[in-house]
């Protein structure tokens, strides 16, 4: 048993760290440090800096721009991004649409979309949730009826993160409303957001931020070449995506950074034993999660297998820790929020409640572990 990174892994981490220190623009870092809103241009600027370095999509195959790093290196890289306070890499293109295209897409689809995702030329969003279909995703109703060489799409998606920035949306749609098993009538479709009939309407969240949207489809014409995988096989695509690349859901680096910042600006509160002990418990949970995460990586590296369903625990614990830290920060800053920083922390506390709801609510994650890991 050896909990330490190898000398090579440490050297790799130092290389990443040194590069980030030099190449993360000061103004972007300052925005992140102050918990300010990041514009589309901010997000894309950072995306392109990483793309230029060849580091924007480490997990992709080398021929499409991947780095060839192993799972541990990829983990180290992602954790360093979180730890330094870089703007987030928006996952919808890089980590969701791209893996699906790489696994199920035609050569033409790969050539058409992957380079543009890599370079940050297309901004993607995800069309899964609907007003009546949240955790019960297979009940979705948005219809795509084939008429010759196109699908005609009608329906509505909701909670669509950054749809107002997006050039493209990948959607789960119902292509066969008659199929008996409801999972079987679903297909995976790529839709150009500029197509006539697509309307995006903002949904403001309680922190006042415009992050998510409703997306309406009224007789939207989509060429059949935008279908990924076979018609009616969309559910297996969605399941593949669910099991893919879930090793960064713990967000250890990001939480370590928040913990360090919390200690920094709450130094006075740390004299209060009650506050201090609450913070210590979060720190202990975070340490435990980091080791648990490394145990998963170690297992993956040795077996060459993707993680099992129990990897859901990283999402559960990771988001609980993120929320606990956001709460302590909000409390340390005080309730009045008179200055801009305190107000930002207050808003952040509100916003972070989403983490245990999105990407498969923590209750759904528990269902997954109960069924797949524990056999209940």
């Amino acid at each position, binding site marked *: 048993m050896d909990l330490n990174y190898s000398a090579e892994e440490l050297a790799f981490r130092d290389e990443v760290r040194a590069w980030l220190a030099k190449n993360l623009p000061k103004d972007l870092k300052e925005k992140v440090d102050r918990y300010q809103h990041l514009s589309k241009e901010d997000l894309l600027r950072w995306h392109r800096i990483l793309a230029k370095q060849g580091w924007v999509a480490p997990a992709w195959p080398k021929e499409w721009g991947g780095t060839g790093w192993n799972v541990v290196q990829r983990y180290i890289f992602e954790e360093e991004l979180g730890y330094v306070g870089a703007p987030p890499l928006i996952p919808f293109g890089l980590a969701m649409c791209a893996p699906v295209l790489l696994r199920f897409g035609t050569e033409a689809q790969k050539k058409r979309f992957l380079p543009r995702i890599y370079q940050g030329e297309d901004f993607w969003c995800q069309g899964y949730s609907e007003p009546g279909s949240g955790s019960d995703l297979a009940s979705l109703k948005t219809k795509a009826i084939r008429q010759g060489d196109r699908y005609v799409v009608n329906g509505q998606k909701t909670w669509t993160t950054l749809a107002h920035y997006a050039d493209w949306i990948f959607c789960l749609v119902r292509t066969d409303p008659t199929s008996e098993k409801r999972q079987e009538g679903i297909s995976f479709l790529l839709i150009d957001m500029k197509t006539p009939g697509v309307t995006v309407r903002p949904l403001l969240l309680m922190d006042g931020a415009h992050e998510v949207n409703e997306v309406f489809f009224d007789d939207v014409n989509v060429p059949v070449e935008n279908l990924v995988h076979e018609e009616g096989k969309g559910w297996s695509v969605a399941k593949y995506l669910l099991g893919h690349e879930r090793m960064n859901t713990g967000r250890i680096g990001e939480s370590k950074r928040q913990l360090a910042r919390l200690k920094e600006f709450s130094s006075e509160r740390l004299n209060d034993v009650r506050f201090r002990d609450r913070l210590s418990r979060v720190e202990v949970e975070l*340490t435990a999660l980091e080791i648990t995460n490394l145990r998963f990586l170690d297992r993956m590296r040795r077996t060459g297998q993707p993680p099992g369903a129990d990897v859901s625990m990283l999402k559960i614990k990771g988001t609980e820790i993120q929320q606990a830290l956001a709460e302590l920060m909000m409390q340390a800053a005080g309730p009045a929020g008179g200055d801009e920083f305190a107000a930002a922390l207050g808003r952040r506390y509100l916003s972070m409640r989403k983490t245990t709801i999105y990407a498969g609510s923590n209750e759904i994650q528990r269902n997954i572990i109960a069924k797949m890991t524990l056999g209940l």
Partner: protein
Amino acid sequence: MNFDYNEEQQLLADSVRRFLQKDYDFEARKKIVASPQGWSAQVWSQLAEMGLTGLPFSPDYGGFGGGAVDLMGVMEAFGEALVVEPYLPTITGALFVARGGSAEQKRAILPAVVEGRMKLAFAHIERKQGEKLGVVGAPMADKLVVSSGSGLFLIDSARGEMKPYHTLDEMRAADVVLHGAKGEPLGGGLELIEEVVDFATALVCAEAVGAMKFACDTTLEYLKTRKQFGVPIGTFQALQHRMVDMYISYEQAKSMACLACSKVDQAENSVERSRSVSAAKIKIADSARHIGQEAVQLHGGMGMSEELKVSHSFRRLTVAAQQFGDADHHLERFASL
């Protein structure tokens, strides 16, 4: 980075587990607990034969020169089986001799411990000077390692006046009055105490993880077999989610036990070691309480009964959560380091 036991460690843990399954099932354990002395000489000699009493001691004295990680799998197996023999007290006491004793003391004590001929206990917590409380393993110990204001002493246990009792987790302990008892000084002061207690605490963490594993496994089994309303109760989501939380709690605790044992063996300095051990003990205490209480609750009335092993694992977990300091104690220490 590697989170597996090496081949030797795995083989040892497997053989200990096999032995316990065969000779230390719950019925056998019950008899030992109910016996007047509260431990089995036969089991003890078996442990010695398997080399367990010599694991952390130098080959110069017949041992194997192992560290905490080498003992981890053994402690997990002990935790699963709820072993009541005074293994940890003996190892702890003998570690003081191995690290603080003179050459002569080592020669007199360590081979006897390794061969299973001698048991020790560590008397630390004090009511007042000369009166030691809650010394686990004292009633069957041959010698006590005693801390005092003027250092550590090795005292024949026969020289102390003992008030023996059963602990909440069915082990044997005693309050010991040592007024005027003659002892021989051991080297090493506060630093050695911190070092050895950290070692022992890491082992308690591993043992507790074993008891947690048993509690989780047996509860999961119960959810699958116990029927109410015509279906296994494990089909109810309210119970499924609680079971999942127990499972996560166990995995998080296991991670921290790995950290504690590794840092005891190879921390860069004593602060890093103690901070890691305290962090681990906080998590182990929280998980032990969580898993123990939930295991009882999900078993319903059966969880309360003397008859099932699950209630005994709850008892062990409850004490393990407090052994060598409860969560509050370690929160204080964690923050001070």
